[in-house]
């Protein structure tokens, strides 16, 4: 049993947060993991990614080999596409639809969405809309995590919720509850998308 996950986005969008939440949940579930992160220069608005490997066996490489990633979870649509070479044949891409346009010449969003739609297994969700609807504009990353949760398999939704509680525990009850809500909204929407596709 193993899951190789790439989490992607732009520096400052909260990639490390959702990586840590999944990592915490995996630890609590007694699994092994390696979690490779980007710290440093790219965190200043550049492209960032984490490689998260979860398994019940020994994990050697900190980096996921190309073509072997089970899930790409992205907080930004163009950043989801950047890691396509890592995606396995049956892999899933779960991404936010809202672009983060901090470069000149950012491609038209319709071109990006149509590339994403070429991938067999994809969920595209407007995390920004969801986050502002539940009045928690900074929780877009957790909405995307919720949308990805049905595909994580090695960690259950309830263990992810526990990890969210633990991760945000120092920030107060209000922040914790907003993020739990964000998680569940993301999950609900992604499950509805799956049902509609079937």
């Amino acid at each position: 049993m193993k899951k190789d996950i790439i989490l992607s986005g732009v520096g400052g969008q909260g990639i490390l947060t959702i990586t840590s939440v999944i990592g915490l949940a995996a630890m609590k579930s007694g699994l092994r993991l390696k979690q490779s992160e980007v710290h440093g220069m790219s965190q200043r608005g550049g492209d960032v990614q984490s490689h998260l490997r979860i398994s019940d066996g020994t994990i050697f490489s900190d980096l996921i080999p190309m073509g072997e990633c089970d899930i790409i979870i992205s907080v930004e649509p163009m950043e989801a596409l950047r890691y396509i070479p890592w995606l396995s044949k049956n892999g899933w891409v779960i991404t936010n639809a809202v672009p983060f346009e901090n470069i000149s010449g950012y491609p038209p969003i319709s071109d990006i969405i149509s590339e994403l739609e070429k991938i067999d297994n994809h969920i595209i969700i407007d995390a920004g809309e969801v986050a502002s609807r539940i009045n928690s504009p900074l929780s877009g990353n957790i909405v995307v995590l919720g949308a990805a949760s049905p595909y994580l398999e090695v960690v259950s939704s309830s263990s992810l919720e526990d990890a969210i509680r633990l991760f945000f525990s120092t920030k107060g009850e209000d922040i914790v509850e907003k993020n739990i809500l964000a998680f569940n909204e993301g999950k609900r929407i992604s499950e509805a998308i799956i049902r509609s596709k079937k």
Partner: protein
Amino acid sequence: MNKLLLCNEAVAQAAIDAGVSGMYAYPGTPSTEIMEYFISSEEAAKKNIHRQWSSNEKTAVEAAIGMSYAGKRAMVAMKHVGLNVAADAFMNVAVTGVNGGLIVVVADDPSMHSSQNEQDSRFYARFANIPCYEPSNQQEAYDMVFDAFRLSEKYRLPVLMRLVTRLAHSRAPIKFKTDKNHQKNITLPDDPMQYILLPANARKRNKILIENYEMVRFDNRLSKFNSFEDGKERRMGVIATGVAYNYLKENISSSENSCPILKISAYPFPKDIVLGIFSRCEEVIVLEDGYPFLEESLRGLLDNGRKIYGRMDGTVPRDGELNPNIVARALGISSNNYTPVPSVVKPRPPQFCKGCSHIDMYLALNEAMRQYGNGRVFADIGCYTLGALPPYKSISSTVDMGASITMAIGAADAGLVPSVAVIGDSTFTHSGMTGLLDAVIKKSPITVIISDNSTTAMTGGQKSQATGMLDKICLGLGVEPEHMRVIAPLPKHHEENVGILREEIAYNGVSVIISRRECIQTAKRKRR
């Protein structure tokens, strides 16, 4: 207990568990989290472990030498290029030897994710004749710290521990050791001459150093960090060092007919175990995340022995970090087909934060410099280096920390007047102050802009040594008070700031302009 830690954090926790008394560092990716862990550790606070940022890597190493002189365990951490700054102290503490155990942790950055070069610190250990440990995973790094302190105290040598970005910044569950070492008491060196490197004594110490180095090489035959796994498929053997071992195992752990593997993580490496694999296999491939350090010495100058594959013959790319796919290709294993990145994807380089004070400084500087043309602004290393990119394109150099002021001096000496230096506050106290003294003494016609955001922003906002003291330092170094100006880089002051810059750039002597506004990230963190 198992805890999910970055390798950098695991190294820090290990030092705490091994009874370290002092931790010294200057920030630098990918090493910064070692000291950050110490600073936020309640355990380190309770044990009263000394843990404060130093002004630069040299002062950090020297303070650690002092801690070790007093008989206590010390650790110092830096990025690879930091060891260049600390090299004088580092090379000479090899000759003095240590008293309390001393570990120098150096995090290399193959592929230069956040650095100017990809120098391989194993050469420094070799250069200084000291042992080097190169862990392949987080747990091994944790365990090695205990062994490194013991080794350091056994042979009275400093030990270099080499990490690479991918390991330093990867998390894994760590099992802590329960054997809690006590911090040691002050015990001065037995030999009162040990640390006095007058030539006559240094010559004696140097012989001891060389002898000890060879003893470590001998001991390393049995080091648990150098291991041999035999295999059925004996045509080709593999020698893998540090994290290269993981990429190797990633590719072959499931294969039935594995080849003999020699993993090397403790240097200097003994001939015997290398001979072991050469006696079994016709050919050997060498995998190293860094320079072809081991490969070059195995080949020797004549390179007419056994068939060796590696970076030097192109089996592995000559530069850049390794990864599982590169190693698969080198081993001749066909990896999965993969889809290329779609062409709509555009590069997304790092950039200034919205509202960054460096932006307003550059906008004013560009305007003030327009009349002189391009190529006269020497910059330094920090967030403000991003001023090289469009739309600013304000700077012409970024070489090493502190080089802005001194390059401006040299260019002015050559007749390039005016020459301007742009340097950050942390970089200024790291290694800009001595350059400014040179300029003052020589009356160089240069203008120095200290872009003071009152933090070390590039590496995540660590304390900047001289926050609140920069004006006094510049005046103390002899800058004339009338040419020491302070500006507030804000759009509303743009015209005024351009005027001040124009005046000082036109001045035929040393002028310093401190452009001061708090880092937007620090300000945000404070508001939370």
